[in-house]
């Protein structure tokens, strides 16, 4: 098998290209990929610093949300321990791109913001801290529009301490 064999040269090239591609894909899982991901998803520092719910929504999305029964917010009526309040959001909307959770009575209203890439279901469950009895709001961004659902959660023992 000689290098300049006319019939084999294209195959060799293909094989080499294949190896290089596989190596690049492998690299894609390393720290380099993490740095890239971080660049694609800047941390919304400003939105997390806002005190009120309205300011946080404005800082995060630049517009206001309309209440919708297509957003389902699952939160307890009474949270005995404000340090751990289980909260879940789901939506029956199409093209959901992000979900945010706000707790109006906390020092900073925005608690969490989730990016929902295509292929990920518009449903997320997590646990938040609540300082006092107040409204919890879920914002769902779908097709460029904002939809919301709000529920009051009574807190027996606050979870923001101090």
């Amino acid at each position, binding site marked *: 098998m000689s290098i300049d064999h006319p019939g084999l040269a294209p195959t060799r090239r293909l094989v080499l290209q294949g190896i290089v591609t596989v190596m690049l*894909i492998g690299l*894609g*899982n390393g720290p380099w*990929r*993490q740095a890239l*991901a*971080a660049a*694609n*998803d800047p*941390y*919304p520092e400003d939105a*997390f610093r806002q005190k009120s719910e309205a300011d946080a929504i404005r800082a995060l999305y630049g517009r206001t949300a309309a209440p919708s029964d297509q957003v389902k917010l699952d939160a307890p009526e009474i949270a005995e321990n404000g*340090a*751990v*309040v289980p909260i*879940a959001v789901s939506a029956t909307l199409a093209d959901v791109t992000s979900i945010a959770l706000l*707790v109006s009575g*906390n*020092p*900073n209203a*925005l*608690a*969490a*913001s*989730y*990016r*929902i*890439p295509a*292929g*990920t*279901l518009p*449903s*997320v*469950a*997590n*646990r*938040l*801290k*609540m300082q006092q009895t107040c409204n919890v709001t879920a914002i769902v961004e779908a097709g460029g529009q904002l939809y919301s659902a709000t529920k009051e959660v009574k807190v027996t023992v606050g*979870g*923001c*301490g*101090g």
Partner: protein
Amino acid sequence: MASSIRVRAIASGDTTEVQALIQHPMDSGFVKDEQGRLIPPHFIQQLHVEHDGKDVFVASWGPAVAKDPYVKFSFKGGSKGDELRVSWIDNQGATDQLAAKIQ
């Protein structure tokens, strides 16, 4: 040291349900210690979950997420044996990551 991340990912049909539990103090910066000094804020800011080289979930968290954060979501396209890569970074620059197999 054992990883701070625990992941359970279960594929059923074309949907994979992912549950992640991370050990982290998630200090808000509003709580005082026994001597009455404020404990400085120390919380995870971002959590990434990757499947097949693509993000399937990105969480941005503030200090109002409870200590030892838990999160659950589902995505389409994963299958049994696939690898999920979970990583986080906190406000003090600390990070951790874990690769887990879909069950």
